[in-house]
């Protein structure tokens, strides 16, 4: 057999049948379900009198809509509450019986944080969820991608999906990440280079010494934002770091089955000589902390950089779009980014809501205080992340610095809950999208790493975290 990429191997091992028009029926091993993109899918099943084919291959949790404040009293907004209760009810239906983690369960959290945490996410699996950041799970060498609600219904009913094969795009990241620079900076830099549609139709494999040296959590941050470059899936080949992370997780295999699984996972790396449709070389040695200045994630530069000048735009259309983005952001053309005052700092989300992210932020905030008037939200990605952070005393660091320590959920990443920006507010955010209105109508989002967000909290402005190290 000719040499194959990691993506090719994952794809080939899940083909059920080929269909007309170059589509393939692909078997789906794992399906994560949340409250926002599932109600219409369950409704579709019920109307057609169909059952969930393999309930144990699914795992449901509420995350987008939930309050991150004390929630023992339940959800106040009746529309949000109905959506959450609908998921709960659907999971309990005799024809569905989908395993469900309730809101007050200590394991509750953002769907992309709990999958890996529970060992539900495994190498070699196909994993889908009605959420574009499903690419996160590709960090384990799983083929993981976001789907729409019609596809959610197809998976629930048949445990398969009709898909088109993607092209192979490898991003080789060589070198050692400098101090104060992490996976978030690397992925923002990559998106800046290839653009928000640079990975459309592709699966991005992240490779190279810088990726091999990364923890699982850093790899998840990297893969999480593959979709921001237009790629539905990001991938990292599994290795000892992956196996060490997974061993002993509640839903991971154990005993002799663990050994058999690891042996098969070792086969998943891209074969030497396998060909890629596209490759990109990234030298990480000189990488600087990144910050976005515009209204999509490719509008990014180093913290020492400036917003572009209108004259830099290649075409009149691009100039008009640049002008609009800068006006929305309240930034002058050519403006220096360092020193822009922020109103809000958000640390959390499926991109940066894991324990290492919180440690990174706490290291900067320890012994310091958030600048007066700056609201700082620290939102752990799951109940287990929260418990771990509290066991390490990170909550005390955040509280002493004047931050708010919240309950797990998607929070201000998308403002579907109470956590939102007000019009004109500027936010240093560890989330993944800086689209207009994403964090609240007319809110201004600057995407940064957890360390950079913490530094912005202390100074009350966009600032270079390396000054703190």
């Amino acid at each position, binding site marked *: 057999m000719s040499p194959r990429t990691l993506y090719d191997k994952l794809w080939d091992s899940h083909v*059920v*049948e080929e*269909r007309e*028009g*170059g589509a393939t*029926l692909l*078997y789906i091993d*794992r399906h994560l379900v949340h409250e*926002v*993109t599932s*109600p*219409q899918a369950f*409704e579709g099943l019920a109307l057609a009198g*169909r059952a969930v084919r393999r309930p144990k291959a699914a795992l449901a949790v509420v995350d*987008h*809509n939930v309050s991150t404040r004390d929630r023992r009293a339940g959800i106040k907004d009746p*529309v*949000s509450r*109905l*959506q959450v209760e*609908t998921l709960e009810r659907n999971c309990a239906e005799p024809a569905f019986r989908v395993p469900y983690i309730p809101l007050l369960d200590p394991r509750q959290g953002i769907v992309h944080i709990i999958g890996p945490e529970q060992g539900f996410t*495994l190498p*070699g699996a196909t994993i889908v969820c*009605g*959420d*574009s950041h*499903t690419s996160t799970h590709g960090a384990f060498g799983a083929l993981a991608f*976001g*789907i*729409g609600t*019609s*596809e959610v*219904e*197809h998976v629930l*009913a*048949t*445990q*398969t999906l*009709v898909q*088109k094969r993607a092209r192979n795009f490898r991003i080789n990241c060589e070198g050692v990440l400098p101090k104060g620079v992490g996976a978030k900076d690397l992925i923002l830099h990559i998106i800046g280079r290839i653009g*928000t*549609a640079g990975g*459309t139709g592709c699966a991005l494999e992240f490779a190279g010494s810088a990726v091999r040296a990364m923890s699982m959590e850093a790899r998840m941050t990297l893969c999480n934002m593959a979709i921001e470059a*237009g790629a*539905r899936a990001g991938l990292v080949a599994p290795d000892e770091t992956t196996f060490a992370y997974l061993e002993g997780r509640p839903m991971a295999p154990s005993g002799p*089955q663990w050994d*058999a*699984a690891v042996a*098969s996972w070792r086969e998943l790396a891209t074969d030497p000589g396998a060909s890629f449709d596209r490759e990109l070389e990234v030298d990480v040695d000189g990488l600087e902390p990144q910050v976005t200045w515009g209204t*999509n994630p490719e509008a990014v530069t180093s913290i020492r950089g400036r917003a572009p000048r209108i004259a830099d735009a290649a075409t009149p*259309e691009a100039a008009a*779009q640049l002008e609009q983005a800068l006006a929305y952001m309240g930034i002058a053309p050519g403006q220096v980014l360092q020193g822009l005052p922020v109103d809000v700092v958000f640390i959390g989300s499926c991109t940066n809501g894991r324990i290492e992210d919180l440690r990174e932020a706490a290291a900067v905030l320890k012994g310091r205080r958030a600048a007066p008037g700056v609201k700082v939200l620290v939102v752990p990605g799951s109940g287990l992340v929260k418990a771990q952070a509290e066991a390490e005393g990170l909550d005390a660091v955040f509280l002493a610095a004047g931050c708010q320590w919240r309950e797990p959920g998607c929070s201000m990443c*998308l*403002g*579907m809950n109470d956590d939102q920006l007000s019009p004109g507010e500027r936010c240093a955010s560890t989330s993944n*999208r800086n*689209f207009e*209105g*994403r964090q609240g*109508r007319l809110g201004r989002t600057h995407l940064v790493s957890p360390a950079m967000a913490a530094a912005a909290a202390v100074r009350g402005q966009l600032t270079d975290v390396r000054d703190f190290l």
Partner: protein
Amino acid sequence: MQPFTVHTGLAAVMLQDNINTDLIIPKQFLKTIHRRGLGRHLFHDLRYREDGSEEPGFALNREPGRSASFLLAGANFGCGSSREHAPWALLDFGFRAVLAPSFADIFATNAVKNGILPAVVAPEALLALAAAACELEVDLASQRIRAGAAEFGFRTDPWARGILLEGLDEIEQTLRGIGRVEAFERRRAGTAPWL
């Protein structure tokens, strides 16, 4: 699902690139548990002012946008989240096709599953269609757009074309061949029992 064969109608023009799903249907409208009724919230933040009144300059608040069934858009249309609420809102407003130079992958799939045609049209042709400001006829089988005397081609994915032309129910199709899924699962139980 309603098949798409030949459709005639007016076009709304929004030619900027990277129109994302947050813009198409903002987060506060994702709390619904229904597919219908999202049309009035389509492009909410662009379409309405803070006080809820219409923004008169916006394409969908004037003719032909108000009664359009085609949307002419820029590159990378539908980038961002996987929310199928985006095509639901477009369909509920009355759109049957989006004509753009390129589409985000998840959006294009979601559109097709709802009978909305994502037609890949060259930027020059889009400009000509926008300038024509007349009724368009879009014929999927021949992949042609007619605007008065002018005619342009477009591209679609062959698989998507098949689904749209037939109005195919894919779940039904897969369930008819469920034996192949069962065979796959039996094989899988031997090679990867942990899955």
